[in-house]
């Protein structure tokens, strides 16, 4: 036979049957084990679960029946990818396979097909068994054929994707261990990187929205996390297509890169030296971000931040150099220079977005460019519902206001905040009388959106806050007025251990209208007042078709005159309010000398009372009228000093501490204290 004459043999086909046979012989156990595991996770689980005498249960999809499929769904395809492509990473098998008279495309195609022959039939067998047992008697789950199809399609697709991705990573690396580690890192990396960047911007970029909306979609960006979420939500159509397309893309890239891969790269970290800079920069960036987030927490000095970023970069650089060169002796003359170049470039990459250079921090839209606006502290609750907790949601469109006056007020406040930049770290964030978290969301004429979050202290911003907070559109969103438009079944008043329910439709209707009016009438001063509610109000919404019981909570404040009058007239107020007759004892002290109490017991009011008693600074109140007046004017307890604290013990056994201001103190009360 002459050299170079094409010969018609089995190896002429794209898939080489003898390679496949060899692979099945060598790695067949993977397929057998995968079949068994899948059978245990799905059909056997269905056969064995449930009690014979209960009603069969309807399940929306097949990913949440007992055992979670996720660990196996990840382990087997990735494992198969590692085992089957071991021939690339180990010298001796690599030499054997690459000396055979086969093109690399044939090798890759045949090995890939071998893997799929090991992985996909188990899925299909399991789905078939699942479909066969479906109509059987005694099955405790009700599911339909479409559910089985969905299960089969999803598991097949994700198996395919994970296997192909592992193969792709295998082509790019030269070590099986590194291949495995990289697969897992890369399957999480997009989400982790987004999260890091989000946190980075959140920390160092003034006004960056607290809730950027990223967290919502984060899991979707990490296939590994997405797979773990399967039991919560199955793949959407878009996701199905994305995974299918990604599989095709990674397969194509594998073929492309394998042609260029050098056989001698077996045992090296990365098979393509032009990936090295990318790999280095990626690892360094992650470790810089991590270090800055970890060490920067709580410390806002510039030196500390720069130092931690530098250390992070150094550690990342050293680690990645050691991986690439496979030794810990990495020091060369060139090394410090290269590290410096990487650090400076990556440092700029981190710094520029959070610097003033982009104008992000000072940007306040012009009033005439704004078409609609939202301002308030509940942007996240209104726009996002990642866990599906909110049972009722207003369409996002509705939270925006187009009122010109309101837009003016919001931009004015925005401008004031941006100009003086109150440092959120100097004001206790959760002290609601002192500061307020505001998310400002603008819809601009250009069709774009501008969202910022600020912590606005009341002090110094009163006029701007008042202008915004007294607008109807602000209150409408702040108090979720739209949810009150639903049909209510009843409402319940409660205070301490007193509870009273009102379900008379007429009363419910009237009360609802009054509450809406009261909420819309709230003044700025009333909204920031620290006076405690007289009772909490809990609405019970008429049950909808979902059979979900929904509750909404509001409060009855002393400033709600119309409501107070109505409740008194109806006699409901008496059912819920405590009077002096119900009080066993009331003991008052001025909250001073806090420094003598260890920091860990700062919030232990009993300790403070004991201290005051021992110093003879407390007084027992016995006058019922004084007690009544205290009950009317309770304030929220805060850490600020110079307040009066009253411990009230009720006859029912309940104990309550209330706080009084200087202005709440009648001369009679004051006279009681020494």
């Amino acid at each position, binding site marked *: 036979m002459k050299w170079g004459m094409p*010969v018609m043999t089995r190896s002429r086909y794209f898939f080489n049957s003898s390679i496949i046979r060899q692979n099945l012989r060598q790695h067949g156990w993977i397929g057998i084990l995968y079949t068994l595991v899948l059978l245990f996770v799905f059909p056997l689980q269905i056969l064995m679960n449930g009690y014979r005498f209960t009603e069969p249960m309807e399940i929306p999809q097949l990913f949440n029946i007992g055992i979670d499929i996720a660990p196996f769904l990840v382990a087997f395809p990735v494992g198969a990818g590692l085992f089957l492509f071991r021939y690339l990473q180990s010298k001796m098998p690599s030499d054997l396979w690459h*000396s*055979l*008279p086969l*093109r690399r495309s044939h090798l890759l195609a045949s090995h890939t097909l071998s893997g799929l022959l090991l992985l996909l039939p188990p899925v299909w067998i399991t789905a078939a068994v699942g479909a066969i047992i479906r109509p059987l008697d005694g099955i405790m789950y009700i599911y339909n054929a479409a559910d089985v199809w969905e299960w089969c399609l999803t598991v097949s697709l994700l198996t395919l994707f994970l296997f192909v991705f592992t193969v792709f990573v295998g082509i790019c690396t030269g070590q099986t261990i590194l291949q495995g580690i990289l697969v897992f890192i890369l399957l999480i990396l997009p989400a982790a990187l987004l999260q890091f960047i989000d946190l980075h911007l959140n920390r160092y970029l003034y006004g960056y929205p607290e809730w950027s909306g990223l967290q919502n979609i984060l899991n979707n960006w990490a296939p590994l996390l997405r797979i773990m979420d399967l039991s919560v939500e199955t793949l959407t159509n878009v996701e199905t297509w994305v995974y299918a397309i990604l599989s095709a893309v990674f397969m194509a890239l594998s073929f492309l890169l394998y042609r260029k891969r050098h*056989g*001698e790269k077996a045992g090296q970290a990365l098979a393509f030296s032009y990936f090295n800079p990318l790999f280095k920069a990626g690892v360094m960036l992650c470790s810089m971000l991590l270090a800055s987030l970890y060490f920067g927490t709580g410390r806002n000095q510039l030196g500390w931040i720069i130092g931690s970023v530098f250390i992070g970069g150094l550690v990342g650089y050293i680690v990645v150099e050691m991986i690439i060169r496979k030794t810990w002796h990495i020091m060369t003359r060139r090394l410090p220079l290269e590290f410096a170049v990487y650090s400076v470039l990556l440092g700029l990459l981190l710094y520029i977005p959070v610097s003033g250079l982009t104008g992000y921090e000072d940007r306040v839209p012009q009033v005439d460019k704004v078409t609609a606006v939202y301002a308030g502290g509940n942007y996240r609750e209104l726009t996002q519902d990642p866990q599906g907790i909110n049972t009722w949601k207003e369409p996002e469109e509705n939270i925006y206001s187009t009122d010109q006056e309101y837009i003016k007020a919001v931009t004015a406040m925005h401008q004031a905040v941006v100009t003086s930049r109150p440092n959120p770290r100097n004001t206790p964030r959760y002290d609601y009388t002192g500061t307020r978290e505001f998310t400002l969301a603008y819809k601009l004429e250009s069709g774009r959106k501008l969202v910022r979050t600020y912590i606005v202290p009341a002090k110094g911003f009163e006029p701007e806050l008042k202008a915004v907070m007294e607008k109807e559109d602000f209150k409408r969103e702040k108090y979720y007025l739209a949810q009150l438009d639903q049909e209510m079944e009843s409402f319940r008043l409660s205070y301490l251990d007193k509870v009273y329910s009102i379900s008379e439709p007429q009363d419910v209707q009237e009360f609802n209208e009054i509450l809406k009016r009261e909420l819309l009438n709230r003044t700025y001063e009333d909204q920031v007042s620290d006076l405690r509610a007289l009772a909490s109000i809990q609405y019970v919404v008429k049950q909808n078709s979902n059979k979900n019981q929904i509750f909404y909570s509001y409060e009855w404040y002393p400033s709600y005159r119309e409501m107070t009058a109505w409740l008194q007239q109806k006699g409901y107020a008496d059912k819920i309010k405590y009077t002096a007759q119900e009080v066993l004892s009331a003991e008052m002290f001025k909250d001073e000398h806090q420094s003598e109490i260890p920091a860990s017991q700062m919030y232990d009011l009993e300790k403070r009372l004991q201290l005051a008693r021992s110093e003879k600074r407390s007084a027992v109140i016995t006058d019922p009228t004084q007690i009544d007046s205290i009950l009317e004017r309770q304030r929220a307890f805060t850490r600020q000093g110079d307040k009066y604290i009253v411990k009230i013990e009720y006859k029912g056994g309940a104990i309550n501490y209330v706080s009084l201001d200087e202005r709440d103190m009648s001369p009679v009360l004051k006279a009681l204290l020494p």
Partner: protein
Amino acid sequence: MIEIRGVSKIFQEEKAVEDISLTVHKGAIYGLLGSNGAGKTTLLKTLAGIYRPETGSVKIDGQPVFEAPEVKRRLIFMPDSPYFFPQATIRSMAAFYRSIYPEWSQKRYEELGTAFRLDTRRKLSRFSKGMQRQAAFWLALSCKPDVLIMDEPIDGLDPVMRRQIKNLLFQEVAERELTVLISSHNLREIEDLCDHVGIMHEGRMLVEKDLDDLKADTHKIQVAFRDERHAAALEAKLQILHQEQRGSVSLYIVKGDRERIAQAFHVYEPYVFDLLPLTLEEIFIYEMGDAGYDAQPILL
């Protein structure tokens, strides 16, 4: 037949093979010599199409080898330590090779079975290294290759088996014009096998020789002349590779026809005249000494 032209191969920014050119004719047995790390294995793997050369070309019968199944199916590479699939037996490996190499001869395989006497159902991983080497040899010859590339093949074979394999190789070369490339770090191991030898050092080819020519043509002469002027006169006439003076005795390594050389010396009627054949080892030591290398650490 085999043409290697200007091949360089770089590993981790270090040149493993540098600008090597080499020609092996059909039916020749070519020995590639060199110490460990000389680049022999790299060159052989490049020739086998496992590595792609950075520069230069590797061709067999005018066709590049890399990624060319039509060429590679007539070529077998035997690595320095034999590798088989995990759990494989000779039988299962034979089945695999049979389906990959179209020229596989079942008849040859069975014939060779009588020569090797290995258990074809026993797991290859349980074989000794020597037995594994025999198995690799058996499988390779059954594929009926036109080119056989062997990396350090003699290691671990007993003398009987070594002779047997040598005979088999000679037989294949004689009957089918098999072309063989053998690498070794020891000249003595392969000098009775090869007809061509190339010596590699630090990635480069130092010397390349036809052994038959060398053996017939190179002679060691010890001579004591009556007059020193005789030496000068003689040196002009002969092709002298090497020359040494030990007291009154001169040592010459001379290339050329034995009769003619003897005659040339007898003209001067020296006190002492001795004409000896050279061992291959000596030839290389002198050749390489001339090229400025100390042959001892490179070859032995």
